[in-house]
């Protein structure tokens, strides 16, 4: 009994436990999902043409799934978006939103001869599943109608069929997936607002949360708006950053730790990079990306820690004017989550005419003449209050809603104007497939 191994046992168990617990606390954010690359090679063939805008518009709709319904659900919603790179290079993406496990496709399309080809990737947001997909719309399966100059006023169910194959990872595409046009998307105005400027780093997206790159990605995920987390640096520069500390959840290891407000913008921009290598953006860089590079319609500027509300107001005014000058209708709201920010906001001379979003109770939202009332969904069913507020002329967004059953319930009740979510593809699916 007194052998050395027995003597060791308690201590070895302790060491193993300490190491196991410690390892359990280790963050896993570096395990990025690798999105298949070089998919454009299948599109850039001789004679391939970009699709006309009316063709793209006509492709949008709810599709019934025949082959592949067991994996991607019985219906899929297809919606186009665009992103502008380098100021002039516009790329259009055809996103497909599925019900099971927050699955979405991001495809690009070309006309090749008398057919239309879509190639891209698919991803499940709730795990690391990813793969590629390729669809063909042949002349007899709807390409003739879609490519016609007078396309396409009144597609009927079955008029367009996307015959496709998909694969897992970088593997061969060998599983059939067939989509048949069923009906148009739900036209009811509704804001799908992506949390943390597009999505969370923990969901292993190809861009970090609160980066310019995730803002550009947000429309592909189904978002029509984004929520920014605003803080100010030591020298007063408003930046997009969620947590109150520099940490490995959001940034690469740099040795810099502690409150982000302790650092100047020059220090942060020179020495700190977000998890996927991006620079921490300023608020102005974020708003520029929204207006210049995306079709996003709503910006919810969540005031995490603001020292200079008049500066935020000036930036808001500047970018509302910029959007208007470009003919864009972009709603930019100052979010008011706490009494502190509310007091700062009410100190503004023009706060009654400033577009704002109030997360506090309904009486405060009315008092400050907020344009949006945004209750937290966990505080209870906001439907009755939402009706009252909408009758008073306010929009109602709830936050932060990720559970598919709740999302469907809220959308079915039709009493909201928007949902803030980490899973834009889920909200997009339930909104677009809903029959008006």
């Amino acid at each position, binding site marked *: 009994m007194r052998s050395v191994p027995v003597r060791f046992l308690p201590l070895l168990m302790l060491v193993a436990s300490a190491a196991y617990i410690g390892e359990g606390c280790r963050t896993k954010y570096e395990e990025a999902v690798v999105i298949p690359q070089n998919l454009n090679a299948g599109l850039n063939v001789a004679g391939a043409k970009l699709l006309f805008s009316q063709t793209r518009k006509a492709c949008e709709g709810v599709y019934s799934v025949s082959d592949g319904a067991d994996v991607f659900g019985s219906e899929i919603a297809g919606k186009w978006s665009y992103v502008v790179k380098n100021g002039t290079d516009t790329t259009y993406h055809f996103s497909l939103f599925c019900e099971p496990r927050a699955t979405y496709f991001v495809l690009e399309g070309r006309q090749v001869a008398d057919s239309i080809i879509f190639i891209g990737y698919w991803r499940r947001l709730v795990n690391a599943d990813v793969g590629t997909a390729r669809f063909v719309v042949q002349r007899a399966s709807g390409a003739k109608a879609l490519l016609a100059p007078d396309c396409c006023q009144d597609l009927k169910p079955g008029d367009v069929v996307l015959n496709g194959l998909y694969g897992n990872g970088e593997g061969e595409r060998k599983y059939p997936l067939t989509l048949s046009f069923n009906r148009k998307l739900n036209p009811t105005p509704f804001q799908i607002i992506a949390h943390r400027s597009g999505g969370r780093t923990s969901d292993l997206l190809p861009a970090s949360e609160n980066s310019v790159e995730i803002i550009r990605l947000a429309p592909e995920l189904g978002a029509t708006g984004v929520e920014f987390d605003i803080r100010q640096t030591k020298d007063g520069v408003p930046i997009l950053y969620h947590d109150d500390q*520099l940490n490995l959840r959001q940034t690469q290891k740099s040795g810099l730790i502690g409150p982000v407000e302790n650092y*100047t913008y020059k220090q942060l921009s020179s020495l700190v990079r977000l998890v996927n290598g991006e620079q921490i953006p300023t608020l102005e860089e974020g708003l520029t990306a929204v207006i210049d590079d995306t079709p996003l319609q709503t910006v919810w500027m969540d005031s995490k820690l603001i020292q200079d509300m008049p500066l935020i107001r000036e930036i808001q005014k500047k970018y509302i004017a910029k959007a208007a000058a470009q003919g864009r209708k972009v709603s930019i709201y100052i979010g008011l989550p706490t009494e502190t920010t509310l007091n700062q906001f009410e100190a503004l001379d023009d706060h009654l005419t400033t577009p704002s979003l109030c997360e506090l109770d309904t009486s405060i939202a009315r008092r400050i003449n907020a344009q949006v009332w945004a209750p937290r969904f966990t505080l209870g069913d906001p439907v009755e209050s939402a009706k009252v507020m909408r009758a008073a002329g306010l929009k109602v967004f709830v936050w932060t809603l990720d559970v598919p059953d709740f999302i469907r319930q809220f959308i079915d009740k039709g009493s909201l104007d928007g949902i803030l979510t980490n899973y834009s593809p889920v909200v997009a699916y339930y909104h677009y497939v809903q029959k008006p």
Partner: protein
Amino acid sequence: MSTWRVGLLACYLVTGLTINAVAQDIAPPKSTTAATPSRQQAIKNRARLRQRSGYKRLQSQAPTPRSPGFTKAGQLRRLSPDQLWDVQPDSTRPNRGPFRLLVYTGLGASYYSAPLNSPVALENKQQLRWSIPFSLRVMWQTDHRMRLGIETGYVSMYSYKGTRNGELANVRVSTTPILAVFSMSVVKRFALYAGTGPYRINSNLEYDGNTRGTTYSLGWMVAGTYTQPLGRNIGLAAELKWYDATQTKDACFIAQATLVWRALTW
């Protein structure tokens, strides 16, 4: 940390301590044999020591040939301060003790062993992973095999510097562990240590002014020592140690010389 992880740790501890208690076989009673003159002297010395320490030895506890304080030849075994559990009565006896407080102070060299990627924006980058760490550990030596204690110290984990637009940037990161430590003697003069607790991580940036930052990172440590006795209450140990601040992904390997002082006995 999830509840089930804490539960698992508690389960491990209880199981480990139980096994440890069972593992201490009680010396079977044997008839007292005639003690050699040298051994009689040793017994007297030992009694004097215990009286000095305030520990009241029961008259009925006659030393036996299997008493671990003696060699097979009946000579008093010379023990390091780190091996004192060996000469104590079994913890299953009704009278407990003696208890001791051991103080360890160490100084040596550390190597930062976790990945270190200084910012890509810097030019002319230089990194330094070596430093001279200091540690202080206080252990309560029970009359059981497992000791309990706390450890702290200071380790300058790493630093790097480089230029950005011609301006020098210098970053230094250090840690002060605040750890609950458990230890066991393995064989003569060798002991193993394991601990867990928070590491206070400090950073200092010199670029566009001076900015300091602090955060706490949960982590763990393991260490092994070999102790050479220098006197009755003093020893010198060679110590190898691994610090791991898990949440901030900081880890360093330390080799140091440790002075062991038996500060209190009761």
